[in-house]
């Protein structure tokens, strides 16, 4: 599935991933392929993505939104910073 991470300043990530873990308002959840359409607000926490190549990335965020539809994941986040 395709993931786009956008901040108001620029596009942070755009590519194919196998899984995305996000800190939802109601609790952390993971988005895998063929996830049901969802819109959720995000709270402060960490995003973890696994790319199709196998490598993984982690970002910390302050707040944001996630939308999933037809294997397109859009993450609109603020206060993003990469975590080593």
């Amino acid at each position, binding site marked *: 599935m395709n993931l786009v991470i956008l*901040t108001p*300043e620029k596009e942070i990530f755009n590519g194919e991933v196998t899984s995305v873990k996000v800190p939802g308002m109601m609790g952390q959840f993971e988005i895998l392929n063929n996830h049901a359409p969802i*819109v959720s607000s995000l709270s402060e926490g960490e995003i973890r993505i696994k790319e199709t190549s196998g490598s993984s990335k982690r970002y910390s965020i302050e707040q944001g939104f996630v939308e999933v539809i037809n294997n397109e994941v859009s993450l609109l986040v603020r206060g993003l910073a990469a975590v080593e």
Partner: protein
Amino acid sequence: MSGQLKEVRERITSVNSTQQITKAMKMVSAAKLRRAQQAITEMRPYAERLDGILKNILSNMDGGDGGSSFGVDREINSALVIVVTSNRGLAGAFNSNIIKEAVSKINTSYQEVRKAGKLSILCVGKKGLGYFKKRYSDCQIIDQFVNLFDDLSFEHVAEVSTFAMAGFEVGTYDAVDVAYSRFKNAGMQFAQCDQFLPVAKIKPVEGASTTKKDYIFEPDKQKLLQELIPTILQTSFQKYVLDTHASEHGARMTAMDKATENANDLLNDLKVSYNKARQEAITRELSEIVGGAAALGG
């Protein structure tokens, strides 16, 4: 006559150096404009996706925007006008156009509010602050954000919109307007005054409800909207500021281009009169020599 020659030469040097300055300023503005434009383009996907989500929620919701606290139309007893201008001049009519818009908004809508002493003016950029501090001393002038242009990051700019929203929510302001300059291209900027709060009622898109899917909404639509609307407002305020920023450099570029051109015209005229004076001097000298030689030989 050599006195006049020297005078013209000095003027040419001075116009030349002025031209160098305007040329340099034009170049600097062109570079800054490019960066400012880039910032606008880079924000666009975020803003569009955000709008998409909003429409999504609304089309899955029956009726209205569910009464967000930012959409309440109250009787206007107090108001805030945010004036976004630049810190520096030399940009043609750029700043005065924005100020004019703000003033006409105040005169048409907030005359009563001003008389009651309930009008606040928030100035971003020193030019607007200077103007309103002098002429609107009966209003409350908020200058804590005057240096916003030093740092145009989203979080920094959002402080202003958050300030306005907080003021609106607690009832300090019943309406908030923003006077800014919409950026079209380097040659065209439009000063205008937009209503920021209360937000215009967002209507669900009719007919085109292709997005009507079985979405899961977390926590729920109502709470999502409450989260989403401030972010959208902050984003649109960011757009006002970025637009003004790009407009400033566009306007300065045009103004400086004109100035360089004028300096060129002036230089041409001066060169002609310099050469004339020089030739006159030479002719006179020659005729003096010839006259002298004739007198001697006579």
